[in-house]
């Protein structure tokens, strides 16, 4: 069984967000990158668990420049068997999805695992587009998954609850919290990761129809108004008259 886990990199969660070149580019200076938590903690680990139970291999895939290799090696250290990096600077979700779909098609992938969203652009787009390009069923926001080798029973998050669905492989899923327990790579894993294959392939062409032009920062908050803890009537008055939210 071939399990493809799509991993992306994102600025570390406390990174300072600023922009350069007339606010057209994210300022990467001094920014530490991590593997997107949904990809690392949930998608990757669940795929490894399925492989441990049912056999096959886990392939970690990233679309990005050579500087991403460090993140890809981490996926190998956690337990992916091999990795592939599409050597390109992605400019849209459509572009990324095209690369994933193309690879999945050529390599007889049974399940494509994505994260729920990247925590930088908060797109939640790649998995849905990939599923469509492959004409496969898509289960979004999976928070629990049982699999018997053919059929998966998946709990997925919906507004205010969960929906339980059944689907047969092949399919695409996006992972949300709960799908697995985070695994920390150990020394042996880190050593083995160095010898595992990381194939670099060229991108297939795609011309993107949505282009990021520029960024702005939201208006800063006004100074906080401190309210006397004995006087909650005053807070209620302000929420009603000033903020107009109640």
């Amino acid at each position: 069984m071939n399990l493809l886990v799509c991993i992306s990199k994102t600025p570390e969660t406390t990174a300072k967000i600023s922009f350069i070149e007339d606010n057209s580019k994210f300022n990467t200076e001094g920014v530490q990158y991590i593997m997107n938590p949904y990809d690392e903690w949930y998608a990757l680990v669940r795929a490894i668990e399925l492989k441990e139970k049912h056999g096959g291999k886990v392939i970690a895939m990233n679309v990005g420049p050579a500087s991403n290799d460090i993140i890809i090696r981490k996926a190998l250290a956690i337990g992916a068997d091999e990795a592939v990096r599409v050597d390109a600077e992605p400019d849209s979700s459509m572009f990324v999805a095209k690369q994933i779909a193309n690879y999945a098609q050529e390599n007889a992938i049974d399940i494509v695992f994505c994260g729920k969203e990247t925590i930088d652009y908060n797109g939640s787009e790649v998995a849905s587009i990939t599923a469509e390009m492959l004409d496969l069923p898509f289960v979004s926001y999976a928070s629990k998954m049982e699999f018997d080798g053919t059929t998966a029973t998946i709990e997925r998050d919906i507004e205010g609850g969960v929906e339980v669905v059944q689907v047969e492989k092949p399919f695409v899923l996006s992972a949300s919290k709960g799908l697995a327990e985070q695994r920390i790579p150990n020394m042996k894993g880190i050593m083995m990761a160095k010898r595992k294959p990381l194939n670099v392939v060229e991108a297939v062409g795609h011309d993107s129809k949505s282009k990021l032009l520029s960024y702005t920062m939201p208006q800063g908050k006004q100074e906080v108004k401190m309210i006397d803890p004995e006087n909650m009537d005053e807070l209620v008055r302000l929420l009603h008259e000033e903020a107009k939210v109640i």
Partner: protein
Amino acid sequence: MSVLIFAEAKNGNYKKNAFEAVYYGSQLASAIGTEAFVFTIGDGANAADLGKYGASKIWFNNAQAKTDSQVVSAMVAQAAEKAEATHVVLSNSALGKAVAGRIAVKLDASLVSGANALPIGNTVTKGVFSGKAIASFEMSGDKHVISLMGNSLKPVETGSSGIPEAIELDIPQTKLKVIETKTVDGVVPLPEAELVVSAGRGMKGPENWGIIEDLANVLGATTACSRPVADTGWRPHHEHVGQTGVAIRPNLYIAAGISGAIQHLAGVNSSKTIVVINKDPEAPFFKAADYGVLGDLFDVVPRLTEAIKKFKA
């Protein structure tokens, strides 16, 4: 030409996010000088009111698989083609996110998900970096799919109710079998909530949550929590807000006993008004708050509940 709006029904009813999408779509249609058509899945029974937000036509089709992205996207794309739509508008809900990309591929359209305002020309904005910045996107080509972030605009009744018409569509066979749907009844789900009361580790333990629930009840608010609270099982994990939980943007966010770590703020800092209750004057959350109360939450929260009761009476 037209703007096609996919209005999402929940158990046959329409909620705020559907009205927002219809209003957004009809505003967009008037800006570009065309009509707004609505498509919805269901028996059409409650669909007439969608017209009030400016739609000139309401189409429905009562397909069985209402949550399968493969089926829903095929239906919406066909409705868009039938309407000769240049734009497809939908909400950025769980279902909206699952289908928006698929629809864009089917229509060979540009895609912007989570838009926070109407497009200006071919440029549309959305929040990125968990609300820490806003990005402008240029959409090229002649078709566009836009999903709308909840609570981005206030729907206004600009039209009258229309008569829903059934339409025939070619519906693909579903490959997903829905076994069960478990939702909490009577509570507004967090992503849609306008009022949210949230609490963190300062609560000391799950047995103390009664005061939070009382406050939420008098306000008609939904409850939320910080990540460690969900991780230790004090509260259900769907209540976890923040960078790795649900991102929300209610009108009012009240946080009690939450320090305001950057990852927590990332999921809540787009809220219109933030009230922070904390006993530590150095708590970082005060910097992100509109109103702050420095005090012991076990005193302050019940007092606030009483004050709201008095105000409502």
